[in-house]
C-alpha cells in the first residue's frame, strides 16, 4: 500500500511538472474576438455621429478644435499612428475587413479558434474487503480519460459555430463481460474484449479511429435575448453537465445523477437560449427539441416523438453569486433494430425491440462567495415501458419494470488564498429504483468524496480525491454486503 501510494505521488508529480511546462506561457487569456452584433454603422459613420450629435446633457469632455495641417511634427505623426491603429481595431471589432471602400463594408472576416482540454488520471481501489478485492481490478491504473478539442468560429456578426469532439481510447479493449461478470450487450465484441475496428469504405477499408462528437452546432443570434442553435449540443440541465470540462469541474469523477444520465448528456436537434435582465437579476432560459435518446440518436430518430426539454435559472449577486435553476426533459426511447417488409401493404416498417417514455426533472443551486463554492443538484427520472415493447429483465425472469430513479449530490469547497488550494467534500445518494440496480446486490448507494483541487495556473488543475461508496439495503452475502468500496484518484487536467 505504502509503495503504491508513493508511486502514485511520484506519477502525479511527474505529470504536474510536464503539464506546468506545457502551460507555462498561458497565464493570460489568449486574445479573442468579441461576440459582436453590430449591425449598423460603419466606423466612419459612427465618427460622423460623434461630431453631429453630441449629447448636451452629459459630461462630455470638449472636442478639440481641428488642427490645421502642418508639416509633420512628432505629435502629429503619433496621432496618425493612433488613428491608424484605432481604424484597424475598429475594423476588426466590427467584423469588417475595411472601411467604406468597395467590397469593404459588410465583408466579414470569419474567425476560427482551436482550443480544448485533456486530463491524465491515476486511480486505485483501496481498503477493499475480501469480496471486493477478488471481484475488481485493484491495480494502480493510469489513463487519459478526456481529450476534447474545440473549434469555434464567428461566421458572421450574428452567426457562430462551435464543435467539440472527444477523442476516445475506449471501447477498444473493454471487456465483453464487465468486472462483475455481467454480460454487456455489445454486438461488436466476439473475443471477450470489445473491438471497435471498423472500416472506412472511403479509404481502402482502413481502420477508423474513434471520436465522440460532444457538440457541433450552428448558432444564430436572433436578438440580444434570443439565440438559436441547430446541431448537437450538451443538454442544458443543472450545473455539472454543461460545466463538464475536467479543468472546470471540482472533482475528478462525475456524481451518479450525471454519470447515469438522468437527462441525456447531449442531444441532436434545436436549442433556443438566452438571458434577460430582471432588475439586478438575470433570468436565463433554454428550450430544446431533439431526437431524444435512442441507439442512434445522433443521426436517426426511430420513432415519431421528438423529445422536449428546458431549463430556467435565476442569477443574483446579493452575497457573491447565486444561481438557482430547474430543468425538465421528456421524450420517448425506441430501439427499432429490425427492418421488415409488411407483406400486406408492401411497405418497409421497423420492428420495435423496445420502447419507453421518459420524464426527468431536476433542481440545482450554486453559490460562489469569495472562496466559498457550494453546489447541489437533485434529479428524478421516470421510465415507463410500453407493454407491447417491454424487454426482458436483466435478471432473466420477467420483463423490465417501470422505474423511478432519484438522486442528489452536494459539493462544498473553499478556495484558500494560498496556491489556489481548494479542499472540498461531496456527498451523494443514488437510488436506481430496482432492487439489484447496481448489480452488487443493492439498488441504492451513498457516496462520499474528500479531495483537494489545486488550480496551479488558470489552465492547469491538480486533483486528489478519495471516495467511499456504501451500498444500502444490500442482500445478505452479496458484494454490496461485503463492505464499502473505496477508491483514490489523482488527476491533472489542463485547458489548452
Amino acid at each position, binding site marked *: 500500500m505504502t509503495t503504491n501510494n508513493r508511486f502514485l505521488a511520484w506519477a502525479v508529480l511527474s505529470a504536474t511538472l510536464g503539464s506546468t511546462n506545457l502551460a507555462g506561457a498561458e497565464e493570460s487569456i489568449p486574445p479573442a474576438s468579441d461576440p459582436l452584433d453590430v449591425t449598423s454603422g460603419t466606423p466612419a459613420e459612427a*465618427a460622423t455621429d460623434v461630431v453631429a450629435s453630441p449629447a448636451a446633457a452629459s459630461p462630455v469632455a470638449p472636442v478639440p478644435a481641428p488642427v490645421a495641417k502642418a508639416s509633420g511634427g512628432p505629435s502629429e505623426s503619433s496621432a496618425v499612428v493612433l488613428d491608424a491603429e*484605432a481604424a484597424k481595431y475598429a475594423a476588426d471589432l466590427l467584423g469588417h475587413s475595411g472601411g467604406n471602400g468597395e467590397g469593404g463594408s459588410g465583408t466579414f472576416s470569419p474567425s476560427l479558434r482551436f482550443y480544448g482540454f485533456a486530463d491524465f488520471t491515476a486511480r486505485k481501489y483501496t481498503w477493499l474487503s475480501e469480496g471486493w478485492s477478488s471481484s475488481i481490478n485493484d491495480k494502480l491504473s493510469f489513463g487519459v480519460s478526456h481529450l476534447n478539442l474545440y473549434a469555434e468560429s464567428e461566421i458572421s456578426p450574428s452567426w457562430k459555430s462551435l464543435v467539440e469532439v472527444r477523442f476516445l481510447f475506449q471501447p477498444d479493449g473493454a471487456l465483453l463481460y464487465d468486472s462483475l461478470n455481467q454480460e454487456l450487450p455489445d454486438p461488436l465484441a466476439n473475443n471477450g474484449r470489445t473491438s471497435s475496428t471498423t472500416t472506412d469504405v472511403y479509404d481502402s477499408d482502413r481502420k477508423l479511429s474513434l471520436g465522440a462528437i460532444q457538440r457541433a452546432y450552428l448558432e444564430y443570434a436572433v436578438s440580444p435575448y434570443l439565440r438559436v442553435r441547430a446541431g448537437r449540443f450538451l443538454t442544458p440541465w443543472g450545473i455539472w453537465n454543461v460545466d463538464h470540462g475536467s479543468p472546470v469541474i471540482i472533482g475528478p469523477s462525475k456524481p451518479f445523477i450525471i454519470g447515469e444520465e438522468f437527462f441525456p448528456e447531449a442531444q441532436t436537434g434545436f436549442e433556443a437560449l438566452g438571458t434577460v435582465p430582471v432588475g439586478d437579476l438575470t433570468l436565463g432560459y433554454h428550450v430544446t427539441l431533439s431526437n431524444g435518446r435512442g441507439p442512434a440518436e445522433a443521426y436517426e430518430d426511430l420513432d415519431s416523438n421528438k423529445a422536449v426539454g428546458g431549463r430556467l435559472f435565476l442569477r443574483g449577486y446579493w452575497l457573491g453569486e447565486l444561481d438557482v435553476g430547474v430543468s425538465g426533459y421528456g421524450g420517448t426511447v425506441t430501439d427499432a433494430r429490425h427492418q421488415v417488409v409488411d407483406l400486406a401493404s408492401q411497405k418497409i416498417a421497423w420492428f420495435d425491440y423496445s420502447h419507453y417514455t421518459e420524464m426527468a426533472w431536476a433542481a440545482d443551486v450554486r453559490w460562489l462567495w469569495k472562496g466559498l463554492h457550494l453546489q447541489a443538484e437533485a434529479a428524478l427520472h421516470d421510465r415507463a415501458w410500453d407493454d407491447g415493447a417491454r424487454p426482458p429483465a436483466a435478471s432473466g425472469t420477467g420483463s423490465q419494470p417501470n422505474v423511478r430513479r432519484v438522486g442528489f449530490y452536494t459539493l462544498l469547497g473553499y478556495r484558500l488564498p494560498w496556491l489556489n488550494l481548494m479542499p472540498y467534500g461531496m456527498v451523494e445518494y443514488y437510488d436506481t429504483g430496482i432492487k439489484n440496480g447496481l448489480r452488487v446486490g443493492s439498488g441504492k448507494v451513498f457516496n462520499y468524496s474528500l479531495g483537494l483541487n489545486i488550480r496551479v495556473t488558470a489552465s492547469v488543475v491538480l486533483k486528489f480525491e478519495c471516495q467511499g461508496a456504501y451500498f444500502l439495503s444490500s442482500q445478505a452475502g452479496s458484494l454490496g454486503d461485503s463492505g464499502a468500496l473505496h477508491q483514490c484518484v489523482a488527476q491533472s487536467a489542463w485547458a489548452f
Partner: protein
Amino acid sequence: MSSNRYLLMVFVAALGVLAVGSWVGFVSPVRAGESPVVVVVGASSPISDISKSALRRAFLAEPTVVAGVKLLPLNQEPGTPERSRFDRTVLDLAPDAMSRFWIDQRLRGQGNPPRAIPSVPLLGKLVNQLPGAICYMKESEVPPGVKVLTVDGKKAGTSAYALR
C-alpha cells in the same frame, strides 16, 4: 525548541493575517488620493447613466442593452491597475479568479472575454468609432471628446460610487 515554537507561532500568525486579509478584502483596491476609475462611452451615445449590474452583465459577455444600445465592452489589458480594480469592484473577481473564470466559460461554451485594448488613448478613439462601445479608465486619463457615465446615478469621487 522554544525558538522553534516562536517561529511556528509567527508563521501561524502570518497565515492568519493572510487568511483574514483575503477574507475581508484587507488590501483596499483604491489608495487615498488615487484617481477614481470612470466608465466611458462615445460622445454621441444616448447613455448617460448605467447600473452596476448592467456593467457586470456586459463585461461578463452577456448580451446587454442599455438605452436601446447593445453594449460592446472593451477591457484594459490584464495586469493594469484599472483592470484589476474594475474586475474587483464590478465583477467581484480577483485577477487570478478572472483568468480561471474565462477559461471555464470558454470550455462551457458560454462566451469569450471582452477584447482587451492595449492603451487608453486607443480606448478613447474606439468608444467614439464603435457603436455601443463602453470602457473604463482613470478619471485623470479621460481623453477629450468622450462621455463619462454616472454609475447607479452616482458620480465618480462621491462616497457611494460603485467603482471605488
